[in-house]
């Protein structure tokens, strides 16, 4: 049987763990941005890379299976309902943010990409993905609240 969560909502334990992890990762990305401002580029690279890769695991293990089972079969028919709309927006924008993070990791942190595929305006890309990441995080919080807190929307 699914284990009950520990945050006092109707969520299962894995959803509470994912929520706290995502908040921690969002904060870690901000810390990583500060490290870049301090010109601690090596630490910055390790911090941001760890977050992007850990988030990929969370997406593959927790979020994608949940979306595929609960939301995928019901859209686009049910997109007028906030339960489905929030999750879909979170998934769509979150996928873009994660892909953007992986692209930055490859382009700025490795030599795997051919030169013509590498970005030249690092700051613009990184700041754009950071902003999008936090929009996705807020959508994720809204999705969690809609799915698991009985009294917020009544």
């Amino acid at each position: 049987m699914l284990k009950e969560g520990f945050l006092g909502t109707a969520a299962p334990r894995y959803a509470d763990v994912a929520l706290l992890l995502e908040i921690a990762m969002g904060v870690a990305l901000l810390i990583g941005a500060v490290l870049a401002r301090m010109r601690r580029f090596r630490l910055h690279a390790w911090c941001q890379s760890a977050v992007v890769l850990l988030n990929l695991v969370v997406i593959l293990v927790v979020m994608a299976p949940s979306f595929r089972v609960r939301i995928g079969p019901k859209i686009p028919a049910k997109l007028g309902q906030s339960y489905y709309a929030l999750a879909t927006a979170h998934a769509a924008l979150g996928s873009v943010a994660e892909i953007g993070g992986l692209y930055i990791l490859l382009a700025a942190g490795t030599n795997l990409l051919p030169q013509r595929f590498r970005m030249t305006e690092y700051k613009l890309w990184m700041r754009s993905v950071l902003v999008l990441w936090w929009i996705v995080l807020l959508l994720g919080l809204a999705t969690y609240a809609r799915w698991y807190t009985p009294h917020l929307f009544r």
Partner: protein
Amino acid sequence: MIRRIFYVLSIAATLVALLAGRPATRAAVTGVPPAAGVEVKIDNFTFTPATVTVAVGTVVTWTNRDDIPHTVVTEDKAIKSKALDTDEKFSYTFTTPGTYSYFCSIHPKMKGTVVVK
């Protein structure tokens, strides 16, 4: 440059949303609502009544009155509904005496019991 980046991001977001959706192939409701039987209402993250006592052969129908999906599942998956949207029903005929504890697989704090005598 900025316009190009946002254009690419918008196309990617649209593609992801389109790829994730697929038409429903099966209805969440199983069976036909019985002429007589017991109804359990699902509302406000609660099964009401939480415990029902029925005779062998009784059909129990769960009706979701909540504004988010719920399921009806037993630990051994002998009883397992699809995700029920608002106003959708799930029916099950209890043919064997016993105590059946079930829960919502989306919200595991939601629990109920059917006692079959």
